[in-house]
């Protein structure tokens, strides 16, 4: 037996163990056994556990990671131990590639080469099936700068035949040309120390481990590896890593529900870390390794420790005096030469801590501030307003009658914040100071209205009001560095009934930012109230945002009051005049969603109208005009000059509610606009020309597009034209579905949502 794969697993992680099993089945070499350390029963008689390699399970006490690995190692019979965590996976050639390397000898520590990603195994396997490329890797999940760009190329042994016969190529070189790896020993032995220390993906000689009784720390909840790894490093003379990544380390993007060990909130994390370092360092006999490990730990302190202790950041460190005492003791053990490896200012702090067990608080605060300043300088001044926000503005008194509004990140003056603003201006004139956040270049702003100022997003005044306004009314998300100050109130109006899966309902891959879920969770904890449009939204937000129902306002959307207003026909007439649309023409509103898979390159999105506008104009031009409303990304790519006075491109129009009001029929597809439009009880058509292609996306919808919609799904222009020619028939056919839809989604929309929201949110501040 060549390899023994060691996998510790908690009972809750059992499903991912099955994924790993499927992954191991795909290994091109099956000369291995798999030993799972799990406290629980695996039914190996089940078909999914059948394999042509040996699988064993072992239980362990105590229930720690260290004990699990130790227990698994006792059963191992392979020549090499390979450490594979249950949430990670291997590329199919991983073990075969390692096996092919002649250089890997018992005195060498092997490494399958970790590749971090947020992409789970199932998703990666699916993507492999859609490509002919044979070097695919999952989406890179590490720092952007470190993403490997160059791929090494193994060359066939026949290549050497092209050299003259008398040339005697060293066998090691010949082997290396066909099986690339990176190898260091001698003076470079401790290079890449951090990578060498990571247990996952390491390949270590089993007899070496047994002979020296190497064990993981069993009594430690965290950091059980330091002692084992440093001992293994000390007992080997070289480090060999495959040139190509073959160990895929899956990072967790949902630290709230599925935290990885390093994401767990543990108040004594630093204490545990330092204790593990102490234990490891005490047993290191090799002076060069002692120095390298000392330097490594000082670097960790330098990079992460000060932030944890700075007074400007919320500290989660438990019992600081005891921690400092422990660190003081640890620093006595550290090789003095290692201090030279950290920068001067940091070295002074560490020296102070070494001399006496007291927190050099001022020096720590200064170094943290200097780092923030340094970041701003490196970005040529970008972020200086944010620095002022953190350092000064958040220390200023809160302004009790100032309201800060933001709609779609400052892109326009619209949505529920606008409705709330208008309501307060009409009913409580002069009571509040209103501050609107707007991006430069937005045409319609509330500037010039009484008690209202407009501030540029991320500018100085923005930072000032963000820190000092008592009320924030925002329809998307606040910045992640926003500080919720005591006495302030935050109203999240959100911006629509959810159609596509949100935050915690999304699968692992879907989120653009891997930290999205965690950041969203932290941000939504700062919301005092969340406006909801219907009971459906309440139910969804409860699981998708993990937001408490008691803090949701069951009010309906303020932005939709205009659609139920008694004077809505008069308002519609005024809007038509404003847009220059003839009053005698009916209006088709076409509002397709944006397809993010249809683009030329980064930031350069294709948009071709699949709706046959020319034909619409020919057949319906006498009676209708077409108003286009598309995603702001593609607004600029639209050229409607050829369609004369039939097409009005209102993609940049601020307030879509006003477009609903004038539209006699809506054509849309997978966009959530129809929830609001349905309040008007006017016909809705769904032009879903790529419905089949969208299958995988539709699985991520909260609605069943086949059953729940208040209008027909139309796949061709012929179908759309036929429906438009006979709208009364559509209305009749979908009357019952429309009724069900309205009851489910628009039951709360009675034209008084703004009043309910304002009364609940501002409460006593309206009168006191």
């Amino acid at each position: 037996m060549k390899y023994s794969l060691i996998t510790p697993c908690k009972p809750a992680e059992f499903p991912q163990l099955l994924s790993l099993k499927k992954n191991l089945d795909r290994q091109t070499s099956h000369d291995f056994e798999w030993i799972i350390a799990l406290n629980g029963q695996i039914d190996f008689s089940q078909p999914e556990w059948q394999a042509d390699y040996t699988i064993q399970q072992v239980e362990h006490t105590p229930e720690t990671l260290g004990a699990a690995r130790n227990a698994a190692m006792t059963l191992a019979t392979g020549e090499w131990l390979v450490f594979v965590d249950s949430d990670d996976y291997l590329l199919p050639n991983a073990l075969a590639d390692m096996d092919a390397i002649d250089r890997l000898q018992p005195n060498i520590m092997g490494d399958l080469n970790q590749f971090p990603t947020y992409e789970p195994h199932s998703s990666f396997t699916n993507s492999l099936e859609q490509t002919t490329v044979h070097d695919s890797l999952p989406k890179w999940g590490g720092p952007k700068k470190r993403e490997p760009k160059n791929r090494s190329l193994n060359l066939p042994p026949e290549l050497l035949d092209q050299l003259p016969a008398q040339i005697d190529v060293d066998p090691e070189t010949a082997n290396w040309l066909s099986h690339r790896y990176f190898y260091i020993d001698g003076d470079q032995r401790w290079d890449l120390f951090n990578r060498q220390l990571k247990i996952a993906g390491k390949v270590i000689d089993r007899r070496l481990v047994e002979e020296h009784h190497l064990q993981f720390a069993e009594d430690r909840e965290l950091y059980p590896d330091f002692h084992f790894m440093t001992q293994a490093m000390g007992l080997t003379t070289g480090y060999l890593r495959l040139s190509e990544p073959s160990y895929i380390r899956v990072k967790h993007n949902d630290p709230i529900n599925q935290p990885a060990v390093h994401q767990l909130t543990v108040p004594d994390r630093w204490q545990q870390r330092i204790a593990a370092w102490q234990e490891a360092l005490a047993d290191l006999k090799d002076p060069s390794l002692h120095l390298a490990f000392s330097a490594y730990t000082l670097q960790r302190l330098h990079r992460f420790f000060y932030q944890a202790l700075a007074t400007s950041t919320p500290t989660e460190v438990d019992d600081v005096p005891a921690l400092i005492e422990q660190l003081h003791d640890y620093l006595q053990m550290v090789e003095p030469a290692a201090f030279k490896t950290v920068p001067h200012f940091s070295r002074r702090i560490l020296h102070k801590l070494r001399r006496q067990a007291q927190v050099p608080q001022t020096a720590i605060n200064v170094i943290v501030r200097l780092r923030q300043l340094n970041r701003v300088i490196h970005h040529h001044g970008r972020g200086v307003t944010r620095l002022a926000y953190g350092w000064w503005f958040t220390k200023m008194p809160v302004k009790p009658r100032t309201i800060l509004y933001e709609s779609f990140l400052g892109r326009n003056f619209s949505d529920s914040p606008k409705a709330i603003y208008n309501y307060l201006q009409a009913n409580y004139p002069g009571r509040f100071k209103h501050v609107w956040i707007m991006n430069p270049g937005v045409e319609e702003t509330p500037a010039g209205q009484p008690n209202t100022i407009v501030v540029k997003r991320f500018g100085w005044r923005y930072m000032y009001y963000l820190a000092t306004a008592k009320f924030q009314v925002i329809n998307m998300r606040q910045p992640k560095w926003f500080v919720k100050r005591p006495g302030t109130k935050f109203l999240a109006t959100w911006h629509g009934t959810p159609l596509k899966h949100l935050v915690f309902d999304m699968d692992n891959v879907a989120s653009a930012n891997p930290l999205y879920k965690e950041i969203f969770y932290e941000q939504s904890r700062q919301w005092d109230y969340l406006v909801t449009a219907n009971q459906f939204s309440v139910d969804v937000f409860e699981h998708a945002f993990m937001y408490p129902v008691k803090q949701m306002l069951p009010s309906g959307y303020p932005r939709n009051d205009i659609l139920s207003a008694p004077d809505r026909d008069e308002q519609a007439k005024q809007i038509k005049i404003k847009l220059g649309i003839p009053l005698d023409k009916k209006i088709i509103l076409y509002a397709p969603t944006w397809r993010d898979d249809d683009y030329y390159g980064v930031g350069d999105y294709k948009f071709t109208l699949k709706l046959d506008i020319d034909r619409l104009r020919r057949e319906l031009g006498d009676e209708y005009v077409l108003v286009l409303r598309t995603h702001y990304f593609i607004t600029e790519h639209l050229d409607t000059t050829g369609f004369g006075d039939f097409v009005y491109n209102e993609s940049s129009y601020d307030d879509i509610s006003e477009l609903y009001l004038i539209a006699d029929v809506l054509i849309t597809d997978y966009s959530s606009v129809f929830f609001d439009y349905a309040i008007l009880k006017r016909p809705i058509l769904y032009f879903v020309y790529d419905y089949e292609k969208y299958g995988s996306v539709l699985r991520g919808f909260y609605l069943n597009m086949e059953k729940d919609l208040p209008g027909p799904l139309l796949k061709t222009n012929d179908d759309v034209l036929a429906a438009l020619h006979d709208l009364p028939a559509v209305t009749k056919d979908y009357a019952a579905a429309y009724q069900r839809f309205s009851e489910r989604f628009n039951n709360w929309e009675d034209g008084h949502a703004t009043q309910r929201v304002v009364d609940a949110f501002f409460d006593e501040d309206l009168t006191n």
Partner: protein
Amino acid sequence: MQLFINIVPQTHLNWAALTTLIGEINSQGFASTQLNLQLPSDQTLSVDQASTAATWSLMINQSELPSTTESYYLTLRETDHVLPGAFLQWEQVSKRHPDSLISLATFADRTPLDDQITTYLANYPAEGTPLNTQPKTADERWIALWGLQSYSVQSNLQSQAQLAQRLRPTGILIPAALYDAQWPLASLSQILSGLQKENDVIRLHVPTVQTRDWPEVTPLAWLDELEAVDTSTLDVQWAPIYADFMSNQLNTLLGVAGRRHVSASHHRQLLTRIKDLNTDPTHWWTRLGLLQLLSPQMAHQLFY
């Protein structure tokens, strides 16, 4: 991998250079190779040459290309060189990315190859490998060079900075699936067609061929190539990119030709033709910009 190597004469066919190139190709020991000589209509082979060509299995002006899924087409000039082990390296990359254009890094023809390899090896030390970092013999150098070989998948296809690497008639491996029969095999239009269809190009980093620079060696031929692209057939996105590329290349041509690589009469001819193109320069202070303000004759006096 099935290779179809299309050889285009640099100017008038240099038979000695062709013989060398065929020797280099044959010594690759690569079974599935087809060779074609694309002779201009005003050139023919002598009887002896035709007989030798037949022994090399060198086809003349073959228009039918192999079309299996594993076929790749490569255009070279007879003055170019293929380095030992090149085909096997190409084959390895093609196995990993079967349907992509492969852009080959090249050594220049100006300085001796050995010197270039020595400099290359000094610039890219092979750390963490068993390779001999200071190879003494030529064969050790080949091994060291092979050892450094790597590739990258480049998706920034429209980047001007790297366009000159990809947009050239020679030194690009074209998979059969990307071949567009409406354009000549050895043409910029052929490569542009491939670039428009694909999302990425594979770049093989360590040189496997030694080539001559088109703008430097045959500036008029390079101008012909640039002019031959029918910009009306390009995608909306590619038309402005090609216009910028053209402007940059014309400027390069003016710079290179001014170093007296061409005769005075060819230089004047080049200036006249470039001036007639009326291509807007990217920057007005460049030679191309100046040429718009001067007569070709005066520009010749100034630049040459």
